[in-house]
Each structure stands twice: as structure tokens, then as C-alpha cells.
């Protein structure tokens, strides 16, 4: 290094006093606490939203069940469910009338059961996705004739021994400079590495990258990442339902997904996987699936807002489905995706801190992150897996794309976290980011503003859904019930 540049590099650097340096055990514990708090919040949010959606769906589900009983009554005597429900709702309130909360819970039961079945099918489909399967992973195995790939595979095995976990599968993707980890748990994890990583990083830096990836596996990020992706994908798909009656392509796509959810055959699981992998992206049917005439017509007139006779027939679905979709979409974008982003950032910081514990060299990790980011961080992955990369793959729009809080911590903040653990401070690391307390205040203010807004939105959606349900769901059901009984 020339003398001038060497002096320039050292003039900004000051060794941190041991008292000022954050212990990486403390850092791991702090990030773990924060991540679990946010995870719990996300779980509660999803449960509440699921319940609201289930309540919105209740009139439709009870109506369908009641009509089925009415139809069966033509052959044999069956209870008049719709008549009983009508009497219960229209009769004046007495002390014997059950509490409204119990009525709401009872009404939500079929919806909750339906949501649970749909969630189970979606989880099954997601687990079968090539991205999360260890028996059919993407990429190719290491080429033993390429030293860089052998080295990368070796450092991952070293880190697995250091973290006391089974060595994960290692796969390579040509022409990429980034790495991601996925799978369904500690024993079934796969690490996907851009083949160019080995060419642009030193062994110590590769060890740091491997340390981060293996830490993600050991900390359980693989499973959490999969669940986060599944939840966001599912809500994004639900959000897409809102456009079903104004966009034929969305309508066809929703219908295709509904059919796949009702009959989860192997072929249909492929349809679900394709839609989950990119819930915000293309609406084309996945390769290999047979396109029906209605889907072709829908594709041709994707932008046509005129309703077909099929859509008119399905109009009773409008209230519950559209409003549930609208609610899910808005909540997803305004609340859940940002919450997930904050949670995932904590997991990233935690993996960084654990990697420092394993390798004992924060500088190597810091330099590796800078180099990977500087090289474009390209890794061709499905949007549902973009957040599993070590550095933000800017070219892939992930499912967190709707979130106003980016899913990856800014490089400057990540650098600062590593500096606190003893990494060398770089003047080129960009402007100092806002301190954590300021960000927390901003998040709190946003929550205070968005919280009531979202609550009002939910209540408005529920009322609008009831009104729409009365017109498009309950009225046709009442007429049919009248004729059948």
C-alpha cells in the first residue's frame, strides 16, 4: 500500500476501548430478545387478522351450508339452519340471548376452520417447493476441479463443526455473487452460493460469510424465514383477491388457486407453489399446467373490466372475498410486512453477531459484506426467498417489496453493529445512520398513526362487508332458501 493511502486509511481509525466494545454474546442475546418480541407480535397480528377474515367469510359459509341442508331437505328431513340463524338474529335481545362475543366466535368457526385448512395446504405446498426441499435442491453441487468451490464447501463444513450442527448441503449457482440459506430445519438446510463468491473473497472473508449462513441455520432463521415468507405470500395472495372482480387475469388466477386449494393434488401443489413463490408477480399459469379456455379468455382480456356471466354467478362471493382481500392486502402492506422486516433485520444482526463469535474476526465479515454488496449481490432466486440472502439482492424484488421498511439492514447500520463488536471503522462506510433510539421513536410514531387508521379500516371493511354480504350474499341465499323450504 502506498504510504499516502496507508496514512489516510489509518488516520480515521481508532481502536475501541474494551469497555466500549459490545460483547458478541450480549449482542446475540439482545437481538434474540428483540426478534422474539417482534415474532410474537407478528403471530398475534396474523391471528387477529385471520379471525377478522373468518368473521367476514361467515355469512357466505353459513349460507352455503344452509342451502346444502335445504337441498338435502328435498330428499330427507334436515334442520333449517338458515331459518334458525334468521330467527336468532332477528329476535329481540333477552337475557337468554347468548353474548354477542360468543355469537361472533360461533359465526367465525367455519371461517377459522377454512383458514386453517388453507394454511395447512399452503404450508404443505411451500415445504414441497424446491427452495425448501433438501432432496431436490436448486443449483449444482461443487465442482471438485475448481479450488474456489472446494474452499467454499470446506469453510462451510468448518463453520458447521464450530456451530455444532450437521454440515448443510452446499449448492452453487453460476454467475452470482451472493449466498442464501434455506430448508426446513437444522438437519435439512441447504446453502446456495454464487459461484463467483470464491473468486472475489479471501479465505477469511469466505469463512465469515459461511459463519453468517451457518449461524442462520443454528439460530433457526431457516424455519422462521420460511414461515415469514409463507405468511406474507399467503396474505399477498389474499390481497390479490380484492382485484378479482375488476381484473380478469386476477380472477382466473384466484380461481386457479382456489381450485388447487380445494384439491391439493401433486399438479395442483405445483400451481400453489408457483403462486406463493411470486405472489405479486406474473399471473401466467406455471409452465406445464394446462390453460383452460376461460383462463385464455381471461388472459386476452386481462385489462377488460366488463364482467362475464361467471363473475355474475360468483357475485355472492364479492362481499366476503373482496373485502377480506382488501383488508389482507392493506394490513399486509402497512403493518405485517414492516413488522416482519423489523423482525428479519434483527435476525440478520443476530446472525452477524453469531458469525463473529464463531470466527472471531468482525473485520472479515465487514469486508465480505462490503465486497458482496459492491459486486451487485446478484443471486437469481424466487421473490419468496430473496430475504434469505446474506446481502440484499437488489435485482430480485422480494415479497417484502411492499414494506416501507426495507427487509435488509442498511449496510452502514450493519457496519456500525460490527464496529461495536470490534471491526475497524471505515470512513467510506457512508453517512452515519440514525441512532437506534431515534429509529424506535419513528417506528412508535408510525405505529401510533397507523394503528388507529388500521383499526378504523378494519371496522369499515367489516361494515362494508356486512352491507355487501346483505345485498350479494344473504339476499340471493334468502330467496333460494324461500323457494327450497
Amino acid at each position: 500500500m502506498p504510504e499516502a493511502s496507508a496514512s489516510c486509511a489509518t488516520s480515521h481509525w481508532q481502536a475501541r476501548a474494551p469497555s466500549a466494545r459490545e460483547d458478541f454474546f450480549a449482542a446475540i442475546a439482545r437481538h434474540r430478545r428483540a426478534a422474539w418480541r417482534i415474532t410474537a407480535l407478528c403471530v398475534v397480528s396474523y391471528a387477529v387478522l385471520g379471525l377478522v377474515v373468518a368473521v367476514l367469510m361467515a355469512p357466505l359459509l353459513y349460507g352455503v351450508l344452509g342451502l346444502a341442508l335445504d337441498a338435502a331437505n328435498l330428499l330427507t328431513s334436515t334442520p333449517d339452519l338458515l331459518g334458525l340463524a334468521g330467527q336468532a338474529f332477528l329476535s329481540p335481545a333477552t337475557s337468554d340471548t347468548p353474548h354477542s362475543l360468543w355469537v361472533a366466535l360461533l359465526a367465525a368457526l367455519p371461517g377459522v376452520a377454512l383458514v386453517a385448512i388453507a394454511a395447512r395446504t399452503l404450508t404443505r405446498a411451500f415445504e414441497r417447493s424446491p427452495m425448501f426441499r433438501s432432496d431436490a435442491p436448486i443449483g449444482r453441487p461443487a465442482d471438485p476441479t475448481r479450488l474456489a468451490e472446494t474452499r467454499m464447501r470446506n469453510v462451510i463444513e468448518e463453520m458447521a463443526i464450530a456451530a455444532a450442527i450437521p454440515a448443510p448441503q452446499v449448492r452453487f449457482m453460476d454467475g452470482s455473487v451472493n449466498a442464501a440459506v434455506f430448508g426446513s430445519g437444522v438437519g435439512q438446510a441447504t446453502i446456495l452460493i454464487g459461484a463467483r463468491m470464491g473468486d472475489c473473497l479471501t479465505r477469511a472473508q469466505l469463512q465469515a460469510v459461511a459463519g453468517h449462513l451457518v449461524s442462520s441455520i443454528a439460530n433457526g432463521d431457516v424455519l422462521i424465514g420460511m414461515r415469514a415468507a409463507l405468511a406474507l405470500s399467503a396474505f399477498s395472495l389474499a390481497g390479490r383477491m380484492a382485484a378479482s372482480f375488476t381484473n380478469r387475469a386476477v380472477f382466473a388466477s384466484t380461481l386457479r388457486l382456489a381450485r388447487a386449494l380445494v384439491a391439493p393434488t401433486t399438479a395442483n401443489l405445483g400451481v400453489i407453489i408457483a403462486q406463493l413463490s411470486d405472489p405479486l408477480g406474473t399471473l401466467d399459469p406455471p409452465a406445464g399446467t394446462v390453460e383452460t379456455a376461460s383462463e385464455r379468455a381471461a388472459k386476452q382480456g386481462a385489462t377488460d373490466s366488463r364482467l362475464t356471466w361467471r363473475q355474475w354467478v360468483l357475485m355472492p362471493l364479492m362481499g366476503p372475498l373482496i373485502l377480506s382481500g382488501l383488508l389482507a392486502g392493506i394490513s399486509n402492506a402497512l403493518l405485517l410486512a414492516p413488522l416482519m422486516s423489523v423482525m428479519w433485520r434483527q435476525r440478520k444482526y443476530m446472525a452477524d453477531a453469531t458469525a463473529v463469535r464463531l470466527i472471531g474476526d468482525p473485520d472479515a465479515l465487514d469486508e465480505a459484506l462490503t465486497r458482496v454488496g459492491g459486486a451487485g449481490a446478484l443471486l437469481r432466486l424466487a421473490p419468496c426467498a430473496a430475504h434469505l440472502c446474506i446481502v440484499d439482492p437488489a435485482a430480485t424484488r422480494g415479497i417484502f417489496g411492499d414494506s416501507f421498511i426495507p427487509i435488509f439492514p442498511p449496510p452502514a447500520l450493519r457496519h456500525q453493529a460490527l464496529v461495536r463488536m470490534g471491526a475497524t471503522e471505515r470512513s467510506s462506510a457512508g453517512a452515519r445512520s440514525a441512532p437506534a433510539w431515534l429509529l424506535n421513536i419513528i417506528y412508535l410514531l408510525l405505529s401510533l398513526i397507523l394503528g388507529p387508521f388500521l383499526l378504523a379500516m378494519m371496522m369499515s371493511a367489516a361494515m362494508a362487508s356486512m352491507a355487501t354480504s346483505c345485498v350479494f350474499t344473504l339476499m340471493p341465499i334468502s330467496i333460494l332458501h324461500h323457494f327450497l323450504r
Partner: protein
Amino acid sequence: MSAGALILLGVPALAVWLISIYNQLVAFRNQVANAFAQIDVQLKRRHDLIPNLIEVARRYMSFERETLEAVIAARTKAASARTAASGSPSDPNAIASLSAAEGALSGSLGRLFAVAENYPDLKANEQMAQLSEELTSTENKVAFARQAFNDAVMKLNTAVASFPAVLFSGAFGFKVAGTLALFENPADREPVSVRF
């Protein structure tokens, strides 16, 4: 409660307590053996790689016979020390011998690589690069596995020396185990001489 009843309840309780302590000591000893088995696999791999490395180096370093033979001799000693240690991983003497033998092997390998710097053709050889990488990786794996072994040894030693296990652990053959300090060349432990 009568004395007879106390004895009737106390003796089985004492027996259960002692059995649980004994079982814990057995579990810790097995953990040490298991942790050593992880190291043993990697050490064997290291010893297996060295003849290949020597074979490649011999083609380019025919004038460095002494250095190459020193590595072979150190490897032979380390291999026999490994065999002895794998038979009794809780024996501090066997572990100390293994540490010393592996340290000597690391020292001779270090000299070999230092001399290899003078042979650009050898440095550029692809097979040599692959073998060096495998050797480095194996040594790293041993270093990381050593942490787990030393943790297991510390647990066993604490349990053996704690009261009341200390009263009967010796009688049952539980001894304090030795920690590993692999790949540390004894010369590296010499005090650094600073001259002004």
C-alpha cells in the same frame, strides 16, 4: 416418624442420588469420548493427506530431502500418538503426547510450506493447491472440534472434582481428563525476544 422408617426411606433415596451422580459422570465421560472421536476423524484425514502432499512436493523439491523426511517422521509419531489417545481419550498423558506430536508435525509442515515458497512451480501446481486447501480446512475443523472437546473435558473434570462425586469417582475409575492444545508448535510458546 420412627428411625426404622427414616432408614427405609433414606437409604433408597441416597442410593438413587448416588446412582444419578454416577450416571452423570458416565454421560460426561462418553461426551469426552464422542468429542474426541470427532477430532480423531479429522486427525486421521490430516495424516492421510500428508503422504500425498509429500509425494507432490518431492517432484519439485528433490534437494529438500531433510525437510520432507522431518515431516514424514513427525507424521509417523503423530499417527501413533493418535492411536494411543483414541484408545483412552480421558487419559491426560495420552492427550498430552498427542498434543506434543501434533505440535511437532505442525512445526515441520510449517517449515515445508516456508521452503515451498522458494519453488514457484510447486506453488502453482494445482494438485498442491488442492492438498494445501484440504490440509488447511482439516486443521481448521480440528481446531473447531477441539473447542467442543475441551468443553466436554471441562464438564467432566468439574463433575469429577465436585463434592460428593470426588469421594467415590476415583474408586469407579473416573479421572480428570486433559485438554487438547493441538497445532501449537512448542517453539511458539517461547517468550518473544524484543531487541532495540
